[in-house]
């Protein structure tokens, strides 16, 4: 655990450029979603259409804040899934540190630590841009909004960590895929496109919606939207129920598969 924490902090320092990009990209996406239609339409029409999707009448500042907050899901989903899958694969297939890992711990414990601890840190690192952005626009209230958003994102990322660990295990130990990044890179946009960020659920193709439902991201989108809209008492029961079910399912599966994989790898 200590080693994982230490490595994550070192990686943050070493890959700071990547983290900066992960702050700029979602901000740019949230900006583009409003700016692009404004280039060819009346700004009031764009605000009206956005308001009709979220179900609350907003002004331009609120639209920008809501899209910015919603965009925080983008780096969380992509970084957690990509990193969990690619780290396991590269440590066992490229970097050849598997013997060191197997000497010190079991694959089950290693996977669970990776899947539960690292997403917490990574989520905090990739959403740091929200702190100055929200405080600048909303003042101290922005900090409160950030804490709520962060809690929702942290819970989501833990489930995503376990979800990615399952994929990582299958790719690394049960298949002969030479380019795992092709899978790791395709899962996040599929989840995000199926979760309906900035869109109404009915317009999403059923297959993408079904795929996204294997994660708590669609429920996180709903919850974060409600928090971003400033509704005083968001209903968190649905989000918590789905997260709890998925967390326990993936925890059991990762634990079970971890034991099996440990025996297989040691043999």
């Amino acid at each position: 655990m200590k080693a994982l924490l230490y490595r994550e902090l070192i990686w943050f320092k070493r890959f700071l450029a990547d983290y900066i990009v992960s702050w700029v990209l979602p901000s740019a996406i949230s900006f583009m979603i409003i700016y692009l239609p404004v280039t060819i339409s009346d700004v009031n029409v764009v605000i009206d259409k956005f308001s009709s999707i979220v179900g609350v009448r907003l002004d331009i500042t609120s639209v920008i804040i809501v899209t910015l907050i919603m965009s925080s899901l983008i780096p969380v989903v992509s970084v957690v899934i990509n990193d969990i899958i690619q780290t396991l694969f590269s440590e066992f297939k490229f970097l050849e540190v598997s013997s060191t890992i197997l000497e010190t711990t079991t694959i089950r414990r290693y996977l669970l630590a990776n899947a539960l601890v690292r997403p917490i840190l990574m989520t905090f690192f990739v959403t740091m841009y929200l702190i100055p952005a929200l405080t600048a626009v909303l003042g101290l209230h922005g900090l409160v909004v950030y804490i709520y958003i962060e809690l929702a994102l942290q819970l989501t990322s833990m489930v995503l960590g376990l979800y990615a660990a399952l994929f990582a295990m299958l790719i690394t130990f049960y298949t002969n895929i030479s380019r795992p990044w092709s899978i790791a890179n395709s899962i996040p946009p599929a989840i995000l496109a199926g979760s309906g960020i900035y869109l109404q659920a009915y317009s999403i193709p059923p297959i993408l919606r079904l795929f996204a439902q294997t994660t708590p991201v669609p429920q996180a989108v709903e919850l974060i939207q409600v928090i971003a809209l400033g509704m005083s008492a968001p209903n968190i029961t649905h989000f918590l129920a789905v997260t709890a079910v998925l967390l326990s399912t993936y925890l059991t599966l990762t634990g079970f598969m971890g034991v099996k994989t440990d025996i297989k790898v040691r043999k």
Partner: protein
Amino acid sequence: MSLKPLLRILKILYFGTYLIKIHLTSYIASIINGALWFILILVPAMTFSEDVSKAFTIFLPGVLVLMSCGVAVAAAIEFLRWYVNQGLTDMFRECGLNVFSYLLSGVHIDTFIFGLLSYMLIGAASSYYVGLKPSAIIPLRPLYFMASLLTIIPAYLLIGSMTAYIYTVTRISSAWMLLAQMILTIGTLVPPSTSVNPLIYLINPATLASELARAAYGSNVVDESILIVLALPLSVIYIIIAYLLGVRSDRYISRYGLEYRY
């Protein structure tokens, strides 16, 4: 006139065609995940617009150019970063192939196959989301569309060579190149209509091809006559600058070397 340069170009293209076998999985994955990422941005942008079908014909053509030119950035980084680690960059260079040659070797695949397939997939998916017929992606004026595809080639070479030159002579991380890909959206995805003088957007080498693609749907901002007049001279200038930047990068590597860096 000697046929040697032409034969050399053909050899490089032949070599690039065979390289596709190595990259096939990556190409397929990139087409799928590129489409999914664009759906995430394009579909809401179209949905929030006043006229969805107009938005479709304005934003979508930019995707064609952006997808191809985005690969140019990735290909340049591949040559100067990933291949360095495996010693392949040196091997290519010993055979007289610098980064310009490497970009040239894949330009036909990245434009006519990867770019076009990505475009069709993104177009079909976006039309489904916004309730348009899939036939909406068929260009009304195919000649402009062909002209756009042809002008992507010099833009691809120049953007790739510029990326390579910046990466070679500075110490910046390759992660910053993702931001360079974002700058490419100005003039491609973002139409030049946002400026008083749309011609200023031509600073982005990818704008010319995007405007020609938009002209294929009748949604161009820069006048067609200007686009036609500029297409040939700008293409030649882009290729010459790209070639010179490739040579300069190679000279720099010969003198100072190129270490593997993230």
